[in-house]
């Protein structure tokens, strides 16, 4: 466990006011005072209730839609999916409405001549108040933040050394180890897709120029997605004889991937005709005339220009398969980024992680600290982060922060 983690929060953030019930002091009659409680609740939570109401209206609209219309099967699937996602909110809203109505009725019974009925009503009021405030403070917020649309994706993680030569390459190896450890803790299977190592130059073996790994398992993408960006390391390199601190950088890119064809097919599909396959190098007469190993493959997705080269394996077959996997991931990532960008245009909150070349985190060895710049979080136990344990904490905080932004935007709709 970490020794100390200070949370330095430099950004103001819209927080959801916890709605408290009015205290007992009031000049109004008991009945109106009681009714006031519910009304006060509604008033303070009006923004969130408005959002819920709007969602319910959306759902009603979907239900009223003509099912037999000329809509494509994709549209039907999406409609069914949307309805399914709104089910829990619908149930919660029904419970809220019932509780609200019951509350009004119960309040009228507080003045009943029968003391037993008055007692029952008092109990009812207390429990209904609980239900109402629970809905407003917990249930609705948790249901409004949409479930992750990417939770079934595995992750393809690309690490590239940036500024700093050998030292950056060594740091790639450190970060790779960190991710591998975290993946192991979370139960994800890790496989190396391709790797480009520095070969024993100047005795500093172990550096990695570029590496792509796949972390497989449900939720893997959601765990690693916040790692995309530039990571900065400040430390005295192994090769440095005079003890000077150097700054190097590496770039991490995390892409979504899925084995399940159905997931990706309905989400999006690549037309094979759009992809050009090239094998590297002219081969002269080829065939029996030549026995050089030629396994390199490049795929280019013509509409977007995205291209993937793969020459890691001796097997052209294997390189082709891996290249397709990376191409799918890049295209899927691009689609998700576009969707995010669309949502962002409608948002007023601070844009986070929009720029892939953004410096997201600094690892300072002399000061034994890791700082994530997006949420201003500093951990003062660098080893623990590199071992993966504390990294999970950082990721959790990033996830929370993300959800809070989403919530803030919802309330500002």
């Amino acid at each position, binding site marked *: 466990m970490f020794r100390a983690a200070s949370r330095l929060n430099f950004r103001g953030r819209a927080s959801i006011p916890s709605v408290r019930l009015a205290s007992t002091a009031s000049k109004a009659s008991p009945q109106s005072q009681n009714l006031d409680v519910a009304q006060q609740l509604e008033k303070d939570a009006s923004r969130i209730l408005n959002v819920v109401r709007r969602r319910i209206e959306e759902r009603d609209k979907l239900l009223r839609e003509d099912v037999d219309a000329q809509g494509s099967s994709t549209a039907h699937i999406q409609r069914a999916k949307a309805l399914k996602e709104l089910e829990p909110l619908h149930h919660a809203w029904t419970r809220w409405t019932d509780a609200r109505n019951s509350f009004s009725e119960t309040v009228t019974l507080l003045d009943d001549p029968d003391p037993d009925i008055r007692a029952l009503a008092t109990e009812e009021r207390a429990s209904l108040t609980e239900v109402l405030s629970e809905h407003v403070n917990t249930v609705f917020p948790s249901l409004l933040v949409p479930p992750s649309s990417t939770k079934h994706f595995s992750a393809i993680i690309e690490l590239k050394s940036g500024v700093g030569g050998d030292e950056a390459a060594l740091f790639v190896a450190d970060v790779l180890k960190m991710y591998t450890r975290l993946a192991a803790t979370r139960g994800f299977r890790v496989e190396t897709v391709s790797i480009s190592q520095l070969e024993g130059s100047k005795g500093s073996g172990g550096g990695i120029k570029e590496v792509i790994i796949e972390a497989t398992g449900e939720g893997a993408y959601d765990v690693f997605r916040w790692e995309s960006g530039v990571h900065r390391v400040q430390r005295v390199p192994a090769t440095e004889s005079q003890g000077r601190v150097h700054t190097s950088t590496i770039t991490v890119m995390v892409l979504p991937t899925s084995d399940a064809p159905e997931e990706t097919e309905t989400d999006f599909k690549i037309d094979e005709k759009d992809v050009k396959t090239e094998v590297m190098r002219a081969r002269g007469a*080829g*065939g*029996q005339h030549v026995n050089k*190993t030629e396994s390199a493959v490049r795929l280019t997705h013509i509409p977007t220009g995205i291209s993937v080269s793969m020459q890691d394996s001796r097997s052209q077959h294997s390189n082709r398969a891996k290249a397709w996997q990376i191409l799918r991931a890049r295209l899927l990532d691009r689609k998700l980024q576009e969707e995010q960008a669309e949502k962002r245009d409608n948002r007023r909150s601070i844009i986070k992680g929009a720029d892939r070349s953004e410096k997201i985190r600094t690892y300072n060895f002399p000061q034994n600290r890791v700082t994530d710049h997006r949420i201003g979080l500093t951990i003062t136990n660098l080893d623990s982060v590199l071992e993966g344990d504390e990294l999970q904490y950082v990721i959790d905080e990033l996830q929370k922060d993300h959800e809070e932004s989403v919530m803030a935007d919802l309330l500002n709709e």
Partner: protein
Amino acid sequence: MPRIGKPTDLSNRILRLSLGSEAANRELRWMKEAIYEARPKISSVDFDATLKSYVKRRATGTPLTYVLGTQPFGPLSIKCRPPTLIPRPETEDWVTRLGQVISSVQSGSQSPISVLDICTGTGCIPMLLSCTSRSPITALGVDISEAAVNLAKENVTEAGLSGRIQIIKGDLFDDTFVRTVLSKATSQDGFDVITSNPPYIPQEEYDRLPPSVKHYEDQLALLGDRQGSGEADGLSFYHRIAELISKENLVRDGGILAVEHGLGQSAAVQNIISNALGHRVRRLEAWKDQWEKERAVVAFL
């Protein structure tokens, strides 16, 4: 006394001389991976010695495939030994494609598709067909070279395909050839599919082949001119195959003949087949390889 560098530095230097540093590094990595894959618990002393020996052999010109002893071929790993021809990526390409269309040959019955592969070498063609075809395959592979036959048998056994693929020794140009192969066929009408990657290099081109091919791979697998025939265009084997098919019940109606050929030979091979088989040929296709070169002629009968 000159300082002897670490084995890896030596290796790098030697490899880089012939290949260029990126390719050299890649080959070095493949060598290391191959050593660990074959012997995961190898001691570091043995590892260094093995790697050094690989690099030495490679640096003198031995094809990497012969150094490592295997060639990836589709999803398979084909065992290779000199002088048997190393499976080519072009062959991988058309055979994979053939596997995708071969199901059209099935007469509708439950029996597997029967394949005759002439000049089978390592046995890679029938093996890859077994993998890529959706319908089950039984195959007979024939080669004139005993070394090839032994190697192909090892490959088939190691892949667990002995129940499906049989390898025999035979000479295409011998009078007994047809009788021998037909005795193994499952039907009187012959095989469903005939495949071949026969030697197709003319003498003149053979003489100019790079050392990595000429000094290591079997001339029998490469030279397409029948000795003593006066032919010098590398096409002797196609003439013979077409002749046998036209005269004997080697392949049934509704079947496929698929042959690989060399650069610029497509038209000639198509003519040989059309002339010999005439109306039997329903459709003739010329397939290109990954490098956009015409590489195989496929005749649907």
